[in-house]
């Protein structure tokens, strides 16, 4: 190598000496900016600088069928009213990503919620918010991320909403409040492993008042390792293992509540911790295992959580999910060894090339135990079974059909409609169709 370099240096000196200063200056002139087609939208490149507009739209049509155990208006008028079909925009993002140099990078996604002033105001979705919004300094084997991010979150939360197999993430990811917050995180990565640790405050979407609230804080970390990871044109063999941990303190912010929906992006949360006795701090541990063998894949995560209410009562909860995926058209999920997360399923034969695109069948078992989470009346367990069909006609376009049957069993009878009626358990059947595209 040294030998080669010295030859190059000598050649450069010789050339420089002969041609003089003028052409040496020419060699320094950078090439003009170019536009590269990539990832659904062109990227502008000028030297090390890059810039790309990005966005996504997810539009859901769903049909809800609730059964709260007893057909009585006294039992659950609000839940009965949920029966029926609806459509709404689940996600509409518009953002940018780019680089100021090879090392300094950024990404900002604005979340737009059409119709947020109506129904969705009660669910806390603001009309405009941020999703990812961070600055990153990236070296070859490490990076530092500052801003709204989730780089220490468990596997399913780290997998983009564009690429998760089902419409919604699991109960544990939703109920335990994973997702993005503003903070500083450091990552060290190898080809098939990564380690991340972060210190976070509130989400940037949470606007604290000047006097009443001090910042919520958390510290979290994640480590992933793929002991088996081999890709060839004929298939993928993958075994992914991961652990994560998070400690949160609410500061003066709202107490932490735990409440999953019945595998739907909207609708009631039947099993939940009550607002009055939620926790002021909690500590959770997550365990991940995932595998891929060509067209077959599985993912499982288990998370256990312990918290303390303001009254000093210790509470605990845990839950897990298992996903099975089968690509009828043979594709494997793409996996990023240095991020420990899954990417999109890219069709082998897109419809634009006369193929069928990607067709996949998926199944999920999802469970969360919130029966010890507090003394509230809505605590209980939730079990969901879900099946789905995904069609990716071309990269960046996906149609998803999900059916989810969810059993929600409360510990306490909250509706004394008649003597002898046990805890009012509910069941929800939801069929959803999502149309999504991104660029």
């Amino acid at each position, binding site marked *: 190598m040294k030998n080669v370099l010295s030859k190059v240096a000598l050649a450069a000196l010789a050339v420089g000496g*002969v041609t003089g200063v003028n052409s040496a200056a020419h060699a320094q002139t950078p*090439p003009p900016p170019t536009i590269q087609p990539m990832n659904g939208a062109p990227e502008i490149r000028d030297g090390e600088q890059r810039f790309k507009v990005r966005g996504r739209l997810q539009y859901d049509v769903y049909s809800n069928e609730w059964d709260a155990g007893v057909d009585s208006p006294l039992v659950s008028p609000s839940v009965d009213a949920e029966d029926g079909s609806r459509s709404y925009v689940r996600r509409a993002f518009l953002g940018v990503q780019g680089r100021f140099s090879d090392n300094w990078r950024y990404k900002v996604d604005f979340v737009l919620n059409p119709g947020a002033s109506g129904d969705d105001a009660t669910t806390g979705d603001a009309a405009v918010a941020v999703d990812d919004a961070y600055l990153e300094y990236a070296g070859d084997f490490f990076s530092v991320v500052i801003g709204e991010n989730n780089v220490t979150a468990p596997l399913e939360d780290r997998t983009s909403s564009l690429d998760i197999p089902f419409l919604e993430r699991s109960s544990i990811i939703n109920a335990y409040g994973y997702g993005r917050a503003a903070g500083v995180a450091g990552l060290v990565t190898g080809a098939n492993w990564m380690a991340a640790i972060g210190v976070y405050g509130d989400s940037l979407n949470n606007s604290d008042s000047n006097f009443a609230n001090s910042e919520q804080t958390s510290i979290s970390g994640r480590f992933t390792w793929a002991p088996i990871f*081999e*890709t060839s*044109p004929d298939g993928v063999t993958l075994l992914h293992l991961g652990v994560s941990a998070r400690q949160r303190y609410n500061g003066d912010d709202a107490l932490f509540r735990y409440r999953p929906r019945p595998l739907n992006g909207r609708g009631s949360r039947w099993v939940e911790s009550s607002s009055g006795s939620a926790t002021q701090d909690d500590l959770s541990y997550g365990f991940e295992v995932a595998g891929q063998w060509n067209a077959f894949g599985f993912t499982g995560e288990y998370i256990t959580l312990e918290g303390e209410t303001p009254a000093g009562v210790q509470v605990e909860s845990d839950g897990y999910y298992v996903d099975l995926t089968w690509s009828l058209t043979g594709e494997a999920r793409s996996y990023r060894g240095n991020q420990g997360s899954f990417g999109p399923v890219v069709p082998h034969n897109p419809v634009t090339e006369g193929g069928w695109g990607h067709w996949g069948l998926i199944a999920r078992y999802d469970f969360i135990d919130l029966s010890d989470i507090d003394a509230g009346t809505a605590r209980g367990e939730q079990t969901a079974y879900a099946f789905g069909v995904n069609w990716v006609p071309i990269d960046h376009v996906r149609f998803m059909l999900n059916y989810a049957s969810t059993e929600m069993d409360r510990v306490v009878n909250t509706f004394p409609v008649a003597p002898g009626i046990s805890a009012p358990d509910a069941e929800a059947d939801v069929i959803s169709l999502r149309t999504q595209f991104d660029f």
Partner: protein
Amino acid sequence: MQTQFFKALSKIAASAAMVALVAAPAQAQQAGAPFTIQIDGSSTVFPISEAVAEGFQQQTQGRIRVAVGESGSSAGLRKFCRGEIHIADSSRPIRSSEMATCAAAGIQYVEIPVAFDGVTVVVNPSNPLRSLTVAQLREIWSTGSRVNNFSAVGGPNLAMQLYGPGSASGTFEYFTEAVNGTARSSRTDYTPSEDDNVLVQGVANNPGGMAYFGLAYYEENQSRLHAVAIDNGNGPVTPSQATVRNGSYAPLSRPIFIYVNAAALRRPQVQQFVQYYINNAATVSERVGYVALPAAAYTAYLQRAQQRRIGTAFGGRAAIGASIEDVVARRLVQTPVND
């Protein structure tokens, strides 16, 4: 309630059945076709891969098919690191950024240097220009160059019409680094193509034409082109198999490669093909106009393929001015080398 529920289930079942019907023929088709080894990348390496593939398919009587593309070294390695092809042809060593991309996608590779090439600068046979110094080449090809007449570099008073490899080409990267000092830094007012035959045509049909590409394309078109001797300070040296072999054609002599997906090498078909490739690389590369490596080198590379020894001997860097002995003696590494 229950009726609704079963309605829903039947809908799901119907759509699943539809999917199965739709998907089944697609899978059956895949199963029936013979296994195809996918190769893409450098147009410089293409003549070797194409000839080897042809011989191999004859030998296996069509039981194993080989598809060879020539989209350029960079485009080939991009596909390779996305897991889309079994083998990437490349006229330069894998870059450190490509090493990282491959690694994060779970792709390991076995690097096989297959031959030596001399990047050949050609002009129209009617052009009396016989030689250029490296400095003059740089004057012509450097970024922002305004040299548009051969008289500026000691040639006739004749307007230049420049042709050259496109930016996805390994030859482009090698030439710009060896001549201009920075890879990919080049004037842009020339007619680019990843297909070397287009460049050959351009120069053959234009008295003022000038281009550069792999030696094989010159050897194949000697009657229609004239190769310019290159003076690197030791007098003009005409590119030929002899001057590439003895190391005197510098700095434009270089190794050319195939990169084989290591997981795919477990497949008997791919292993069989790669062994056939290495066993025939010397003969085929000499025949198409390149320079074979020493026999001992091919023996070592055969072992490398059999044992699936992964990594690159170049640490993610270019190999400007390396001799054949130098290339053969290098040791494999799996992470980029910075020095």
